[in-house]
């Protein structure tokens, strides 16, 4: 079972690692994160990343399947007498991307964003076009010698951007790239100092990796709760996968794993959380107060560092949909601090990822029927 999580062995030339002693296993999930980050899974087209995930989860759980909308649902049964609390862990597996809308003379493609793309990050990006077979491309923009003075001060408008496929005939492309084809950035995962990693789609493949990490931890623990790990689809276009999967599963409670903004120059302290200081526990009307408290106490008990992310609204995560599914589902939100969200160099800490998996496993281990019943008593 451990074999699927081969330890990361990448050593950076010339970099003296100050961390990663033998006891520190934060690199344990590097390979899985790398694989998931590089899989294609733009909202509504998550089949590739789902396949990869099914294989990863299969040995860790009792059963794993996809539902009608494409959500991956992994079920690990609890032990001991009935009743078994039913807990849902949700992490979205879709990523933002581009969709081909027009094929131009000369081998160029026009596109529209899928999800919240920052158009300013696109010029000069290397891309993969997921047509009948994957094609490489470049997002081009008007060459500098054609620019008006002062033009560099303005972001390039989205309708002036295009993808250069390297082909020169429109007809040739039409056969290979049907309209509606999804496009992703082509990007290797980069290991930075202090076990930070940078890459595309870490929002929220990192959350999906935490899901796997939690199941991995649970194989070593006894737990009474029935655990449903859901990798949801179509979060980036309106938390849609979470809506139907929480209805379908009707769990007693749910914990959503997503990313929150990391600290960086120009971002206020209450909006950006430091990397490597543990997961941020969501706090606000969208989070069940007792789930928040229990997660916090669990973190304290097992020595997982944590931060508190106060937020007036859960808009933008699966918690938005799950909290109000069916008759209402007590929901918590656990987030990995991530810098440069929705760019192709999203950056987060592998330590945070590992610690979050450990926290969730311990939380699940402590779930008893009485606690679940109490969640409706105010």
């Amino acid at each position, binding site marked *: 079972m451990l074999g699927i999580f081969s330890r990361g062995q990448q050593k950076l*030339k*010339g*970099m*003296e690692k*100050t961390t990663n002693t033998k006891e520190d296993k934060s690199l344990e999930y590097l390979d899985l994160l790398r694989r998931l980050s590089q899989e294609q899974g733009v909202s509504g087209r998550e089949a590739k990343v789902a396949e990869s995930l099914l294989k990863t989860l299969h040995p860790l759980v009792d059963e794993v399947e996809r539902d009608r909308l494409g959500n991956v649902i992994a079920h690990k049964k609890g032990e001991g007498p009935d009743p078994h609390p039913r807990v849902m862990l949700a992490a979205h597996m879709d990523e933002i991307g581009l969709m081909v809308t027009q094929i*131009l003379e*000369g*081998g*160029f493609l026009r596109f529209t964003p899928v999800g919240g793309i*920052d*158009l*300013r*990050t696109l*010029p*000069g*990006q*290397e891309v993969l076009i997921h047509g009948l077979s994957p*094609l*490489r*491309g*470049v997002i*081009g*923009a*008007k*060459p*500098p*010698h*054609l620019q008006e003075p002062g033009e*560099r001060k303005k*972001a*390039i408008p989205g309708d*002036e951007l*295009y993808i*250069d*496929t*390297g*082909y*020169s005939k429109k007809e040739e492309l039409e056969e290979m790239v049907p309209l509606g084809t999804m496009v992703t950035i082509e990007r*290797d995962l*980069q*290991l*930075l*100092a*202090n*076990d*930070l990693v*940078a890459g595309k789609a870490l929002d929220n493949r990192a959350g999906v990796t935490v899901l796997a990490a939690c199941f991995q931890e649970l194989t070593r623990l006894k737990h009474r709760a029935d655990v449903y790990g859901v990798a949801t689809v179509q979060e980036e276009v309106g938390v849609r996968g979470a809506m139907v999967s929480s209805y379908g599963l009707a769990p007693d409670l749910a914990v959503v794993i997503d990313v929150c*903004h990391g600290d*960086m*120059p*120009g*971002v206020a302290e209450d909006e950006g959380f430091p990397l490597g200081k543990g997961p941020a526990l969501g706090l606000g009307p969208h989070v069940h107060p007792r789930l928040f408290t229990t997660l916090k106490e669990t973190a304290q008990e097992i020595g997982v560092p944590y931060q508190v992310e106060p937020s007036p609204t859960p808009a*933008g995560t699966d918690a938005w949909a799950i909290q109000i599914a069916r008759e209402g589902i007590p929901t918590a939100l656990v987030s990995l601090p991530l*810098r*440069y969200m*929705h*760019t*192709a*160099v999203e*950056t987060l800490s592998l330590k945070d990822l590992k610690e979050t998996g450990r926290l969730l496993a311990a939380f699940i281990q402590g779930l008893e029927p009485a606690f679940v019943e109490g969640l409706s008593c105010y």
Partner: protein
Amino acid sequence: MLLKELSEAFGPPGQEDEVRDLIREKIAPHVDRIWTDTMGNLYAEKKGRDAAGPRIMLAAHMDEVALMITRIDREGFLHFKSLGGIDQRVLIAKPVVIGRQRVPGVIGAKAVHLLEPEERERALSLRELFIDIGARDKEEAEKLVAIGEGAVFQSRFSSIGGNRVRGKALDNRAGCSALVELLQYDYPVNLTAVFTVQEEVGLRGARIASYNLKPDLALVMETTTAGDVPEAKSHQMSTRLGKGPALTIMDRTLIAAPDLLKALEETAQRLDKPYQWKQTATGGTDGGAIHLTGAGIPTAVVAIPCRYLHSPASVIDLADYQHLIELIHGFLTHAPGRRTGQK
């Protein structure tokens, strides 16, 4: 593939060591003499069959546009200035490597969620951008990176479309690669290839190289803007991919020697190879420095059309690359007399 190795090599202006070492190793078996000068230009001499024949300089610059680390802040982020002309808008959300040790870093940007509407329309200035290497603070960053080190895009060279390639620094590693290939053949003329430094910061290496050599004529092997892209009008399309190497009549720095241009054009026609005239008078090359050196040196520029120059992913057509080699090979094989190029 040589072009791949060269494209992926690290070579900001003034820090061309890796490119120079790579080229030196490749050309050593094929040339009579190799030497360098005070700035790091790499010279390779090939004596011709006719010792009294013309002395021709072939030049290709080794450096690439890059960033220079100028400041490390308290939080451990790296701040930079550009080494050569970079449109700062292509920097956002790109991975880079710093120094020959290739310390990885990324140029991030504030998440789109946190932007005010007007911020989305505005391009970030160089001063607002920074590189994140994951360091906790200044002290830790200083262990990995030194002030003054260059940073280049971390892009993988790869094929794209039918017969094209995509990669960083094709300007001008494509010219370097073509020149290395040419050096494998023998010619009647006396040839000195110069792989120049610091073109991107003001044609600086070529100036002293041409002074040192005082050749009878010079050919610059370059890449040049291809404008055959959406949003461009046809008269703005400087050059077009796949239509052959481009000859420059005039750019910002040079009016090419007419006889030399004519000889190149005739060579292309004789060999029945495609060529095109650069349609805009924009840009500048080492030719600008070379032709004004000493008492003046007849100079022409032959360039491979290249889309998205100075970005993480530039694109050339390999047919143009091949035709450039064939054109110059043909020119050298039937080399004109000593006086060619002079009116």
